[in-house]
């Protein structure tokens, strides 16, 4: 493998770990996923077309492995979500505890999203990819990206903020219904 590609991958590792964390819901499972993806990427580095975005290519490999893993272990779906209560977020104690609870709720909420919604949410909101980039990466129409994103946001909002606020956000649940849930 070309040394500059190797270095680019090394530099991307923090972002790749973040995406893996978001997909799997735990840092450890995310690292397992990323490790598999790196091994696969290195063995197939000739399939990456220089000039295209390396991170999108890696995201795609990770997403593919993730989907295959899920098919393989469907029987033990619903396993507990690993949440590390020791992750500091700064601020004074009260705010810190509240913030921690909030972030736990967000992680829990993201982990409960349907797989295809989770990937789109992470790619757009965390990784900053455009709808077009996500559509190309996942090989789905841009309209589907938007409808999944809207549903993911609506569902996450309801899960994080509880049912009492569902009225004001339910507007996001409408429109597009290619993934009834």
């Amino acid at each position: 493998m070309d040394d500059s590609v190797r270095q680019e991958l090394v530099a991307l590792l923090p972002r790749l770990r973040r995406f893996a964390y978001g997909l799997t819901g735990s840092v450890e499972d995310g690292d397992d996923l990323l490790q598999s993806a790196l091994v696969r990427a290195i063995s197939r580095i000739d399939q990456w077309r220089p000039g295209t975005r390396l991170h999108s290519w890696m995201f795609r490999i990770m997403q593919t492995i993730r989907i295959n893993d899920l098919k393989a272990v469907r029987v033990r779906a619903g396993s507990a979500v690993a949440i590390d209560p020791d992750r500091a977020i700064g601020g004074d104690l009260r705010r810190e505890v509240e913030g921690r609870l909030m972030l736990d709720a967000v992680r829990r909420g993201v982990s409960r999203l349907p797989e295809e919604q989770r990937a789109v949410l992470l790619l757009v909101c965390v990784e900053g990819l455009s709808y077009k980039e996500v559509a190309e990466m996942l090989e789905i129409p841009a309209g589907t990206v938007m409808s999944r994103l809207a549903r993911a946001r609506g569902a996450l909002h309801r899960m994080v903020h509880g049912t009492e606020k569902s009225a004001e956000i339910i507007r996001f649940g409408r429109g597009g219904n290619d993934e009834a849930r």
Partner: protein
Amino acid sequence: MKLDETMLMAYVDGELDAETAREIETALALDPEAQKIVDQLRQNAAMVRAAFNDPMHEEIPSRLMAPLMAEPAPSGHRGIEASASPRRRQGAGRLARYVMPVAASFIALVVGVGGGYALFGLTDPFTLEVASGGEASDDGHISDVIYRALETETSGREFTWRNAATGRSGTVATIKGFVTSGGQICREFRSTVTLGAETRTRHGLGCRLKDGGWETLWLQARNR
């Protein structure tokens, strides 16, 4: 302009062209309900980012570095060819531009937040040697070595370079690192350049950019 949810979402996600975005902003000023939705969308996106941000400033586990480690170096030292990668080239250009005094606040920041920071586990000692006929300037070699030092886990390890063309040699060692409140990793480093009996020491700061590269700048000399 009618503000539907799809439009507001595209606006928040930066999918709209500048003109449409301006129209939305004008309409938002008259529509507190829509503004509330926009705020909520932004807030939710920020929370998702925060929820999964830890890996951005954590040490990379060695098992993830392992598949990416270069093949063993053929001899006692590891060399980088003079033709640096584009990323390092870019660093060299920035470096040259940043040879200037910087704000004292930057230095205070470095002094104020300590603590070693571990990034990558490159294990072998590194020396960059330029045999002969190289560029008259040392800047490219220095920036290559700085890049290598910044990418290396252990603070304090010294990386050396020699430039036969200018007769100069030097060292680079990272001193300490910190994470800014914005989650950006920064590392301070010390660079020495020796010509004959004279050695000049400078301090610099490297901060990791979003695209994975490093932005470096020289810090003003200070007494320690």
